[in-house]
């Protein structure tokens, strides 16, 4: 299958995503410049991390108007798999493809560390290789990762099982102590109603090889391959 990795001015995890998809997962991959107006030939589109447009105004606020975003919306509407990681998650929220917004961390600092998240939903194309409730180790690297949404939006996400990852302790307790950035309901990742657009603050592409300290993130990519029938259940 072929992954398209969108490159905005200021994206900086695009090469990491490309590397994992191409060299770790052994799939076809291509970069898509943000001015592109076609996503033809791609099976899954990744909006990578970084600082698109220098995070000016608000994170993702300018990138969402890049020409390619119209195609991303169309691709998503047709059921194509879209994954927004970190800045990609912020862009998907600004574009209205996911609800809510990511705000400045509660502690105001840029946080770069390995943390634990609990898999809240293993019934998505991005998480089917995990066990429900499994705790994984994965890095975060952001200054604006505090998920915020109106109470009724949070309730809908909760009721519909659309909270995919929550910050937790190593033993799976979702507590305030385990919440690195002050996110509402410890949210680290959510999915849209049709379950084909995922947004997550942690970086699965940075946890896909043993040499980098862990492979839990690789299973997000493996899940996608499973949903395309390329990988058997792992």
């Amino acid at each position, binding site marked *: 299958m072929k992954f398209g990795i969108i490159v905005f001015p200021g994206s900086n995890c695009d090469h990491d995503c490309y590397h994992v998809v191409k060299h770790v997962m052994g799939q076809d991959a291509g970069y898509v410049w943000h001015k592109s107006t076609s996503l033809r030939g791609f099976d899954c589109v990744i909006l990578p991390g970084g600082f698109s447009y220098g995070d000016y105004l608000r994170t993702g*606020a300018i990138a969402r108007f890049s020409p390619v975003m119209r195609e991303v919306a169309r691709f998503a509407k047709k059921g194509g798999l879209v994954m927004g990681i970190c800045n990609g998650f912020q862009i998907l929220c600004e574009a209205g493809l996911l609800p809510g917004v990511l705000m400045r961390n509660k502690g105001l600092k840029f946080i770069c560390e390995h943390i634990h998240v609990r898999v809240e939903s293993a019934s998505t194309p991005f998480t089917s290789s995990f066990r429900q409730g499994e705790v994984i180790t994965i890095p975060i690297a952001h200054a604006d990762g505090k998920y915020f949404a109106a109470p009724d939006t949070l309730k809908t996400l909760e009721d519909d099982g659309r909270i995919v990852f929550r910050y937790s302790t190593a033993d799976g307790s979702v507590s305030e102590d385990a919440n690195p950035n*002050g996110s509402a309901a410890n949210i680290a990742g959510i999915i849209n109603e049709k379950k084909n657009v995922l947004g997550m603050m942690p970086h699965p592409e940075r946890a896909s090889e043993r040499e980098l300290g862990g492979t839990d993130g690789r299973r997000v990519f493996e899940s996608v391959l499973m949903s395309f029938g390329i990988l058997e259940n792992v």
Partner: protein
Amino acid sequence: MPGMKANVYVTLKKGVLDPQGKAVKSALNSLGFKEVMDLRVGKFIEITIDGAGKREAKKRLEEMCRNILTNPVIEDFRVEIEE
């Protein structure tokens, strides 16, 4: 090019936590400005536009605010056009 000058004030909605405001408030308090009870940080945007009438200009500015200058989930805005 004289144009029309507009001021756009972007503020966080009530109920949205403002950690930056909190940090600035406690900095002021610790500098001896004990009278500061609450403080919220927003954004101020100066815009010069080439517009015909004031009413039309205001309409366009509000459109800009809704489209990109603010995120309605967390922010409110106010537009002022200078005389």
